[in-house]
């Protein structure tokens, strides 16, 4: 495989494009609403009307407004030009139509509309802020390319960044580019990605007195936060982008083996990853001597049983090694001693998904998006008491108000938004009064919450905040691995206290004990699960203390 060959695949793919593209979402959300049958019926309708010459039905990844699924988008590509823009120029074309809640029986009607006729199928408004406020970088191909065909990804400029890196950049130049881009880890804590890569690149293995310099790359696709589905969606919609990011990372740190750790609850993502890996290997894009360079890189999938704590990096690595998935104290950090004791780079799915665009368009381009300290965009899973639920990708620094009110469309049936919960069980609730604050790592932390992996749960006036705190505590209690005492026993005690309060049976002494135990669990637990389990309690106590007090007095 060489650059001309890659370009040839892209050109051939683009040339084969038909005048009209019917894109049917086949990501998990819409699939669960029967979109597979919708797609099949659309194909049948196209054949029945003898339109196969002009019209293509394509299964694509998530189109983001998941609450209205199954979604079908009709795009008139006109001249056969590749209509898919990337990044900021990817505004929907004026010929684009979005159909919502499509049933299999709607298929003929959609075809009628393509022919200029009338249709009764519900149409979405592509000029709504839900779409226009988005800036797709991670999701640039989502809803456009066919995740099961590598040619489709290549036609969208896929694997050019990898080629460029392998043939024209030194490993340290790659690390430098990632550093300059300002990219930070999207798995929660926001650790500078370039710095992490640089550390692993420099690390020397001393595992088993082994002098070989083996290193590993891990993609953390465990995604256990309740309400979060960003990583799943990226993998289902555009798996090659993650493989490309991992391969670039492998080259830059000197690793030849990558693992994707993904939970068994994500069968569609697993399946598409398997297909993607096989296709990439067949084209010589993964495996040995990639793009005829001296770089070998293999990627294997490791399936987890679905335990929240296995997203914690040391537990995750134990699980890959075939051990019980429990965390161990850091240091040593994975960068120094990771999988089987070798230096290991571990990043989140979305973090890897940002890599290829950064290489392709330049670190400066990326560094110009977002805020001073939080660069680029962030994908959020918008859920809860809100009109438009689904996936959004917005530049860092977008205000919460813009997201919740303009994009989300507020509470259905005229309700009032009370708060938004971000960061999952490690995060907190932000009251509506603070909605003018921008979404970036520092601001969210300052508000007593967290970026986390990107779950955003909107709550209205009917929500009781003690219940919210109790819900997340129950989650942590169930998901605690049980290794360390503060988390194993502390979460049970905290859950019991919260229950007591919400049932109106608690005294002020209980509230005091609650605060004392929260402080203790936070500061003494072994891993991030226990250390952050009290956060939802802290933040609800901070902003909604009166609700606790009302239940006590």
């Amino acid at each position, binding site marked *: 495989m060489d650059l001309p060959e890659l370009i040839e695949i892209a050109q051939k793919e683009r040339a084969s494009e038909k005048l009209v593209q019917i894109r049917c979402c086949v990501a998990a959300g819409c699939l669960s609403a029967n979109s597979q049958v919708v797609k099949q019926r659309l194909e049948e309708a196209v054949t029945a009307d003898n339109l196969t010459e002009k019209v293509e039905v394509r299964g694509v990844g998530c189109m983001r407004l998941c609450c209205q699924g199954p979604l079908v988008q009709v795009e008139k590509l006109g001249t056969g030009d590749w209509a898919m823009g990337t990044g900021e120029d990817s505004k929907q074309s004026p010929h684009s139509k979005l159909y919502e809640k499509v049933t299999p029986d709607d298929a003929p009607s959609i075809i009628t509309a393509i022919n200029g006729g009338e249709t009764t199928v519900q149409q979405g408004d592509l000029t709504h802020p839900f779409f226009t406020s988005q800036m797709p970088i991670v999701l640039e191909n989502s809803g456009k390319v066919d995740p099961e065909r590598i040619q489709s990804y290549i036609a969208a400029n896929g694997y050019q960044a990898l080629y460029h890196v392998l043939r024209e950049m030194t490993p340290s130049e790659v690390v430098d580019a990632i550093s300059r881009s300002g990219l930070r880890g999207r798995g929660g804590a926001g650790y500078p990605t370039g710095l992490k890569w640089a550390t692993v690149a420099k690390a020397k293995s001393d595992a088993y007195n082994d002098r070989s310099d083996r290193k590993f790359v891990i993609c953390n696709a465990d995604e256990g936060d309740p309400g979060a589905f960003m990583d799943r969606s990226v993998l289902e919609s555009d798996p090659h982008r993650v493989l490309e990011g991992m391969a670039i990372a492998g080259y830059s740190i000197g690793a030849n083996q990558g693992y994707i750790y993904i939970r068994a609850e994500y069968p569609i993502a697993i399946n598409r990853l398997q297909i993607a890996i096989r296709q990439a290997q067949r084209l010589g894009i993964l495996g040995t001597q990639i793009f005829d360079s001296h770089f070998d890189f293999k990627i294997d999938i490791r399936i987890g049983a679905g335990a929240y704590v296995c997203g914690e990096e040391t537990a995750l690595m134990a699980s890959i090694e075939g051990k019980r998935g429990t965390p161990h104290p850091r240091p040593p950090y994975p960068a120094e001693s990771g999988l089987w004791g070798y230096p290991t780079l571990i990043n989140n799915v979305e973090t890897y998904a940002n890599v290829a665009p950064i290489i392709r368009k330049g670190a400066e381009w990326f560094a110009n998006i977002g805020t001073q300290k939080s660069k680029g965009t962030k994908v959020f899973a918008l859920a809860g008491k809100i009109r438009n639920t689904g996936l959004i990708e917005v530049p860092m620094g977008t205000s919460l108000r813009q997201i919740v009110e303009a994009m989300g469309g507020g509470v259905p049936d005229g309700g009032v938004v009370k708060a938004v919960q971000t960061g999952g069980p490690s995060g907190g609730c932000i009251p509506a009064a603070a909605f003018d604050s921008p979404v970036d790592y520092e601001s969210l932390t300052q508000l007593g919450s967290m970026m986390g992996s990107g779950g955003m749960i909107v709550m209205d006036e009917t929500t009781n905040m003690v219940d919210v705190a109790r819900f997340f505590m129950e989650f942590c209690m169930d998901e605690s691995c*049980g290794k360390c*005492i503060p988390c*194993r026993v502390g979460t049970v*005690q905290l859950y019991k206290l919260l229950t007591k309060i919400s049932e109106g049976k608690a005294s002020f002494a209980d509230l005091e004990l609650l605060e004392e135990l929260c402080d203790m669990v936070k500061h003494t637990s072994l891993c991030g699960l226990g250390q952050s389990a009290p956060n939802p309690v802290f933040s609800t106590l901070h902003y909604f203390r009166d609700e606790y007090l009302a239940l006590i007095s």
Partner: protein
Amino acid sequence: MVVKTLTINEQLISAREEETILQAAQDAGIHIPTLCHLEGVGDVGACRLCLVEIAGSNKLQPACVTKVTEGMEVETNSDRLQKYRRTIIEMLFAEGNHICSVCVANDNCELQDLAIEMGMDHVRLDYHFPDRKVDISHHRFGVDHNRCVLCTRCVRVCGEIEGAHTWDMAGRGTNSHVITDLNQPWGTSDTCTSCGKCINACPTGALFDKGSSVGEMKHNRAKLDFLVTAREKQQWLV
């Protein structure tokens, strides 16, 4: 040998490069409470009793797995640490079923000793009253899960010293428990050599010799020390 100097509780001490804060403190005669630590087997940093404050870091670190560094300033006994430790012990008493007066390990129990050391005169927390089992299927030993603090010392001593790996952990969170083989009754275990090392390693009355009555169970840690020195240093010192 590279030597580091550091201060623990404002006392200047020296330590070997590879030593942990716990070892360095012990050498200097400074006591740090521990529960999951057992001389001779690997550390897991699970009980969190040995947490110490290190100047310049707002994170507490477990002394048993944290290596000394040059110029490190360690505080092992602040009011805050004492308060946390007491709560940890209270949590263990609330979690299992520790009625010392009817326990084989009464008077010979590290958990009990720690409770006394922490000045724990009562438990402020809710008792869990879990439904836990007792397994006396083994011809010589028994396990009472109500008294287990999940320190995994038995797991490590069996795996690392005896080499049998009969013990392991199962379940998660509050349902965590130790198991023998693939959660089979201990008495039917194919791997257990009946060496008794786990009995001696156990800090509480969870693992006991059958036939011991209340207060009779004596833990012989010297036996483990002997085995470890014999293995690692080829010295057969009694």
